[in-house]
């Protein structure tokens, strides 16, 4: 392979990435310019294939050079990468929670495929109409301020879960489940969660440690419920296990989703501005 062959190979790799209307013209010009560039170098060794390769490597990969001639189509706009990653991970998490193990891989791949199509369509629309998807303002909710009604509802929901857990009505727990290694742990965690929510309700605002504690306790409750379901032998009557445990597993899944949402909010949290001093009166 001589220097002209090396240049020809480079020009070909650049030009085939360009739209057909400018492909031949750019190739013709680029080939002539690169040959002249190489010939103009003073050292006779600069005319070798090695020198041509070194010159072209300095110029950049063919894909990079082609991108300078024509902005390539991107499936995911660089500015949308974060949204894509969040959507991919959130969907993957939901798939992992809800799909039977034998379908998890297929469902996850299908989700990633759907996302690629949606983001690709968005990218195409933006390329043709840069003004599309204009930003719109929305009200920012200050997460530190407690919504008393919301917190009271949470307290009620967790209390209900604890009450049902302690007193399953006409259903009877198995001896295995009542052993100290199984049932009491969740009671302790639920009690901690209730204590935390009562504390936050009294304080009137969330703090960093209370937010993270709520997150960890929510994950812990979800894991405990999931563990009960997978271990089985919760009720004295095996038929009751079959009937009730899928619902418990669903509660565990919902709690994991809530925990995932809380975690995402912590990761993307914007701290409120410090309070401005009030003007003296």
């Amino acid at each position: 392979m001589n220097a002209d062959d090396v240049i020809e190979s480079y020009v070909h790799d650049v030009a085939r990435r360009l739209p057909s209307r400018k492909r031949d013209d750019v190739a013709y010009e680029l080939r002539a310019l690169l040959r002249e560039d190489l010939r103009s170098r003073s050292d006779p060794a600069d005319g070798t294939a090695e020198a041509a390769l070194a010159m072209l490597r300095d110029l950049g990969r063919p894909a990079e050079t082609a991108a300078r001639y024509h902005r390539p189509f991107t499936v995911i706009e660089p500015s949308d990468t974060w949204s894509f990653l969040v959507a991919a991970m959130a969907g993957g998490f939901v798939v992992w929670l809800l799909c039977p193990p034998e379908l998890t891989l297929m469902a996850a791949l299908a989700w990633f495929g759907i996302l690629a199509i949606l983001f690709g369509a968005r990218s195409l629309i933006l390329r043709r109409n840069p003004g599309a998807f204009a930003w719109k303002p929305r009200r920012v909710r200050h997460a530190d301020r407690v919504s008393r009604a919301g917190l009271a509802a949470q307290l009620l929901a967790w209390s209900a879960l604890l009450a049902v857990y302690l007193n399953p009505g006409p259903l009877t727990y198995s001896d295995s489940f009542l052993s100290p290694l199984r049932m009491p742990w969740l009671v302790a965690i639920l009690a901690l969660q209730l204590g935390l929510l009562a504390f936050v309700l009294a304080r009137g605002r969330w703090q960093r440690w209370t937010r993270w504690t709520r997150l960890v306790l929510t994950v812990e409750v979800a894991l405990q419920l999931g563990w009960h379901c997978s271990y089985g032998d919760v009720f004295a009557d095996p038929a009751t296990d079959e009937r009730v445990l899928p619902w418990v597993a669903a509660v565990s899944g919902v709690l994991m989703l809530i925990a995932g949402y809380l975690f995402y909010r912590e990761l993307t949290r914007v701290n409120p501005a410090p309070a401005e001093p009030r003007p003296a009166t």
Partner: protein
Amino acid sequence: MTVEKLEAELRRGVLVLAVLSRLRTRQYGYSLRQVLSAAGMPVEEGTLYPLLRRLETQGLLESTWDTDGASPRRYYRLSPDGQRSLARMSESWRQQVRVMDSLLE
């Protein structure tokens, strides 16, 4: 390193004006690089050649092929639109130089 990157950014900002200023007479890609380099503004070929195509697409340059010599050359020169743009950008540049001089004093 950071200062070098900032200097490169500064040069990139004035590159279009520099290129337009040298295309009052016709030049092809390689000769234009030589002219700019001799004037103290070296430009990489990977930056300059696509820029010439872009300026032509924007209507600021006109080009013609010359295939008489040993190797074919595409010559560029300012179009009427390019001449008007150069005049306007030159005035804008001089104004910015005055502003920057007063800021840097």
